[in-house]
C-alpha cells in the first residue's frame, strides 16, 4: 500500500524480511512491583503467525502493548521490522496494525467509514487512496450494510469488523491481535480468522494473543505459553500440534480449560 507523508514504508521490503524480535523484555509497573513481564525473548518471522497463550493476567497483553509501543519496557528491547519500539516508535507504529478485543476503541459518534478514513489519514493515506482502501476493506470484512451508520448503534460483531478494518487500513506488514475474537459470533470470528490466514500467506508477521487453544491451533505456526510474565513453553505446529484438534489444550490443560 502506497502512503503519503511517511518515509517508513520505503523500506517495507526490508521490514518484511526482519520480522519482530523481542529480547529479554521485562515490565514492572512500579519500582518495587512484581514484574508483569519477566525476561521474555522470542522472534516472529515474516509469514509466521505466533500465538501467545495464557490465562487472564499472565502477561500477554502487557507484552502486546510493549510491542505496539503503548508501554515502555522496563528493560529489554523490541524491534519491529528493524525499528526499536522506544527510539523509533513512530516508524514502528506506522508499520503495525493493532487490534484489541472486547473494547474496540472505535469512535461511537462516527460511522465505520469515518473511523476507517480517520485512521487512513493519520497513517498518511491521501483521500483517493483512502476511499479505495475503504471499499476494499468493506468488501473484505462485509461492512457494506452498516458502513454509514454511527458506530454507537452497532453490535459487537459489527464493531469488531470495523475495528479490524481500521487497524489494517494502511496495509501494515505486522499485525498484533490481542484476543480479537473474544465474545464474537461465529461469522465475525471466521472473518478474523480468514484475515489472519490471508496475512500469513501475504508474508506478514502476526502475533496473536488468546486463551482459546483451538483458535491458536487453527491459526498459529508456533504457540508460546505465558505464565506469571514468563514464557514457560513453546509448541510448534509441525512438531506438537499433531494435526489433532484439541491437542494444544491437552498439552496445557490448566490454561486452555473452559475456553471452548
Amino acid at each position: 500500500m502506497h502512503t503519503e507523508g511517511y518515509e517508513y514504508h520505503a523500506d517495507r521490503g526490508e521490514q518484511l524480511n526482519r520480522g519482530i524480535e523481542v529480547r529479554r523484555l521485562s515490565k514492572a509497573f512500579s519500582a518495587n512491583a512484581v514484574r508483569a513481564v519477566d525476561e521474555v525473548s522470542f522472534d516472529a518471522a515474516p509469514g509466521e503467525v505466533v500465538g501467545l497463550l495464557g490465562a487472564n493476567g499472565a502477561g500477554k497483553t502487557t507484552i502486546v502493548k510493549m510491542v505496539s509501543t503503548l508501554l515502555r519496557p522496563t528493560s529489554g528491547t523490541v524491534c519491529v521490522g528493524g525499528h526499536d519500539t522506544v527510539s523509533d516508535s513512530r516508524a514502528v507504529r506506522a508499520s503495525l496494525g493493532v487490534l484489541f478485543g472486547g473494547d474496540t476503541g472505535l469512535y461511537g459518534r462516527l460511522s465505520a467509514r469515518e473511523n476507517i478514513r480517520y485512521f487512513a489519514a493519520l497513517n498518511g493515506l491521501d483521500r483517493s487512496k483512502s476511499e479505495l482502501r475503504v471499499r476494499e476493506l468493506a468488501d473484505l470484512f462485509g461492512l457494506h450494510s452498516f458502513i454509514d451508520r454511527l458506530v454507537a448503534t452497532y453490535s459487537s460483531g459489527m464493531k469488531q469488523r470495523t475495528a479490524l478494518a481500521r487497524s489494517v487500513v494502511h496495509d501494515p506488514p505486522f499485525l498484533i491481535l490481542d484476543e480479537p475474537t473474544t465474545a464474537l459470533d461465529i461469522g465475525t470470528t471466521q472473518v478474523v480468522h480468514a484475515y489472519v490466514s490471508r496475512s500469513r500467506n501475504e508474508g506478514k508477521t502476526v502475533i496473536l494473543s488468546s486463551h482459546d487453544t483451538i483458535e491458536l491451533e487453527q491459526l498459529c505456526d508456533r504457540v508460546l505459553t505465558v505464565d506469571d510474565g514468563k514464557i514457560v513453553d513453546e509448541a510448534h505446529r509441525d512438531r506438537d500440534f499433531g494435526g489433532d484438534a484439541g491437542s494444544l489444550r491437552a498439552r496445557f490443560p490448566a490454561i486452555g480449560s473452559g475456553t471452548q
Partner: protein
Amino acid sequence: MKLPARAGIRETLIVFRKEITELFRDYRTVLVSIGVPLVLFPLLAAILTYGGLSSGTGTSGETVVSVSGPETVGISGFLRSRDELTVVEPPSSGTLREAVADGAIDVAVVLGGARARTEAGSPEVAVVFDNTNHRSVAAGELVTEMLKGYLTHLTTATETDSEGTTVVSAPFSVQLEPMHPPAAGGGTLILSFLLPVIVLVSAAIGPLASAADLGAGEKERRTLESLLGSPARRSAILVGKFGAVATMGFLGIVSFVGGAGFAYIATRTLTEGLEFTMTAWTVLSVAYPAVLAALTFSAIEFLISLYARSSKAAQTFSVPVLILASAAGYAAFAVDMRSLSLWYYNVPLLNIGLAVKGAVLGNPHAAGILIVSGWVVVYVLAAFTAARRIIERESVLRSV
C-alpha cells in the same frame, strides 16, 4: 518526502476536523458549550429586570469628598464634621469632573454662591458623581442624603407672601449631577458588573464538556489507545484536540454575546431600561479579553481532562476552576477602575475580568491588556507543556 512541520500541521488538522465533527454530534456537549452561554445573559437580564436590582451597592472605606465654592449656611463645616466622610481640598490642577473620573475623589460638592439660584431663590448645591462607577454612585447618594438631612434641620425660617400665605423657604437646594446621561450611566454600571462575571463563567463553561470528552473521555472509551498507537505525532494530536476544545470555548463566547445582544434588545423594550451604547469598538474591546478567557479555560480544562482518569473525574476537578472564574468576575466588580494599579493585571483570571470591565467602561487599559495577553500566552504554553508531559507517559492510558 514532505517537511516534518507540514506533516505535523496536516496531522493536527486531521485530528481537529475529526474532533469537531464528533463534538457537534454530541447534543450534550453542544448544549453545555453553546446552549448554556446562550441563555445565561438573557436569564440574568430577566432576573435583573423583574427582580428590580438596585445599582446602589454601597462603598467600603472612607468616602472622599471635595467641597468648593463660597461657603453656604455652614455646609462645608457640616460635611467636615461627618465621620463617614473625608473632606479634601479641590484638586489644584484639572477639573473637578476629571478628579471624580480618575478616582481622586468620590464626589465633588459644589456650593452655589456662583451658581444660578433656584426658582425659590435659594442657592443650589450640586453633588457631582460618576454614575458609571458604583463607588461614586453610592458616595453621591450618601452625601445627598446627608445634605437633605442638614437641610431639614435648617429649614426653620418662614415668610409671608403678598397674599398673606405662609411659605417655607429652604436655605439651599440639593441637585445631583451625574457625569454621564442617567440612563447610559446606569446601563454601563450594570454591564461593568455583569460582563466580567459572565464572560469568565461562560468562557469556563464553554470548553468544559468538550475538554472532558476529548481527554478523559477518550481514555474511558479506550479510543486514546488506538489514537496513540497510530503514527501521528503526539504534539499534533495535542494541538488538534486543544484546537477543538478552544473552538468550543470560542463558540461559547459567541453564544454568550448573541444571548447578551438579545437580552439587551429585549430588556429595552420591556422596561424604561438602562441604556448602553454598544459601539463596534466596545464590542471588539470586550471580545478580545473574552477570547483570552476562552483560550485560558480551554487550556486549563483540557490539561485537567488529560490528567483525569474518567470524564466524571475531569468534570469534578474542573469545578474549582468554575468557582475561581466566578470569584474573579465578582472581584473585578469590586475593583475601582479609576485608580487601578497595573499590578492587578498580574492576578490570574482577575486580570481578564478587569480587561473586560475596562472595555465596558469605554476605557480599556492598553498596558493592562498587554500584560493580560502575555499572561494568557504563559498559561497556554504552561498547560501545553504539562499536557505534553502527560501524553508522553504511558500512564495516560490508564482509566477507571
